[in-house]
């Protein structure tokens, strides 16, 4: 395994002062460069908190978060994020929505005006990669939920972030759309190899997409189990019917059930 790209060392996060809610405690994990890691856990276990700490949106109460060899104490501009809601800007066309990060990230905003055609081409290529060719001129409301989520994924990728943070990006979609988007995400990942941290509560999704699945305890959250996912890529729907796949999902489910009861499993 190459060097750790994301190092989370004994991190704690408490909201609302000394007596506030303890969301994370003693949470440690490492993610290698180019690795696809899924984090699963019972609801309210602090998965989303973990995302915000890694992206530098909030400072950790205790412990260290290091990304790309740098201590995270402010947003590092090297993260692309996508959430459960596509959060597109309704007044922008799809292409302009995808290009929004380029107008913000310091390294790109200076070059955007001069090299606009090249950047536009990049955005169009990305849209094509996720199956949205020809939709650049549409407005978000003209697209279905799944297509909006694809757009959101493109927006997270356009500035070529070395780290992709996905917070339950597919959980608002129906099963068929969701499985389509698993393939889209897998394809994007195989093409570009960003480091991915995917937070989800869909265990099949975690097993389908990740190289490694981490299980969090209930609050205060920390990593209580880790499973490598051995299936070769590209994984297909056939993979999900393998007995090994089913067994892995069953194992993960058992971990989570134990975590919800507050038991140790490691």
């Amino acid at each position, binding site marked *: 395994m190459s060097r750790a790209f994301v190092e989370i060392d004994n991190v704690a996060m408490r909201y609302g002062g000394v007596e506030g809610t303890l969301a994370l405690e003693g949470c440690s994990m490492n993610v290698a460069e180019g690795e696809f890691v899924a984090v699963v856990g019972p609801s309210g276990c602090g998965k989303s908190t973990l995302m*915000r700490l890694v*992206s*530098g*949106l909030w400072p950790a109460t205790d412990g260290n978060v290091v990304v790309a060899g740098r201590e995270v104490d402010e*947003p*590092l*501009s090297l*993260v*692309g*994020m*996508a*959430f459960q*809601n596509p*959060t597109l*800007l*309704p*007044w922008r066309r799809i292409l302009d929505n995808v290009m*929004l*990060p380029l*107008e*913000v*990230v*310091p390294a790109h905003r200076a070059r955007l005006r001069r090299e606009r055609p090249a950047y536009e081409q990049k955005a169009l290529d990305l849209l094509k990669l996720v*199956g949205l060719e020809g*939709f650049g001129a*549409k*407005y978000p*409301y*003209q*697209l*279905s939920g*799944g*297509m909006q989520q694809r757009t959101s994924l493109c*927006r*997270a990728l356009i*500035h070529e972030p070395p780290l992709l*943070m996905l917070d339950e990006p597919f959980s608002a979609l129906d099963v*068929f*759309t969701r499985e*389509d*988007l698993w393939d889209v995400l897998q394809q994007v990942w195989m093409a570009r190899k960003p480091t991915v941290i995917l937070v989800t509560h869909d265990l099949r999704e975690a097993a389908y997409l990740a190289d490694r699945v981490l299980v969090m305890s209930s609050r205060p959250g920390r990593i209580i189990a880790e499973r490598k996912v051995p299936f070769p890529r590209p994984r297909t729907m056939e993979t999900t019917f393998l007995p090994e796949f089913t067994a892995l999902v069953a194992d993960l489910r058992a971990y989570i059930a134990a975590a919800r009861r507050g038991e140790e499993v490691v």
Partner: protein
Amino acid sequence: MSAKANARLIAMAAAARRHRRLQAWLPWIVIFGTFGLWELVVRAFGIVPFILPAPSDIFEAAVKWWKPLLDDSLQTLFTTLVGFGLAVVAGLLLGVAIGSSTLVYKGLYPLLIAFNSIPKVAVVPVLIVWFGIGVWPAIITAFLISFFPILVNVATGIATVEPELRDVLRALGARPVDIIRKVGLPRAMPYFFASLKIAITVAFVGSIIAESVAPNAGIGRLMMVASSRFDVPLVFAGLITTGLMGIMLYWIAEWIERRTTGWATRSTEGSNFTPGG
């Protein structure tokens, strides 16, 4: 497709067309119907013009006094628009400040609410003491009365940016001013234009209040003078002129709104939804 289905589709299209035509004509039918009914009632019951003038009396008065009516209307329009313009600028600036900073919000809001609760008619005498009788009391009253709705709406639009969207941008290294420029302001525009439609109509109220308390010029003074002469038809002519100007400016605001923030009212044109994964 079967002949029956075809006939049905054609019938439905025709019904939709009829419906749209009716919708376009309905405001005019209602307006002329109201005036007709009004005329009829006044004549049938022999109501004297001093109590309630018939529309024909009002029209007659308007024609007879067209010159002062026009001059005073333009005067009122002028003070209203200047006051309204100031309100737009101040409302936008303060709205952005209040919407983007909890500190400014907490600090200023109570004062603003208290100020907005003061009946503006009570402020006019003070304005006259400060600025003398002239255009300024009318302009400032129009400003004071129309500034609050704009401020509140702009602040709401900016303050309600989705936290996830804010996170997406912040994680990219966006400064607060970037977030306001890229997301907050465009998002606040539908609220802003909705408030313009309210603000422009109440700005008239402000101007006319000031003109009535300090009768110097404008349609408010015209109505005061007319009523002191018991020329009730002319008072009504003034009222109706004001109403017409209000509708005109409302339409202009609405037109600008449709041109600039069509994305927020897409449901009316809808139907170009594309299905897919």
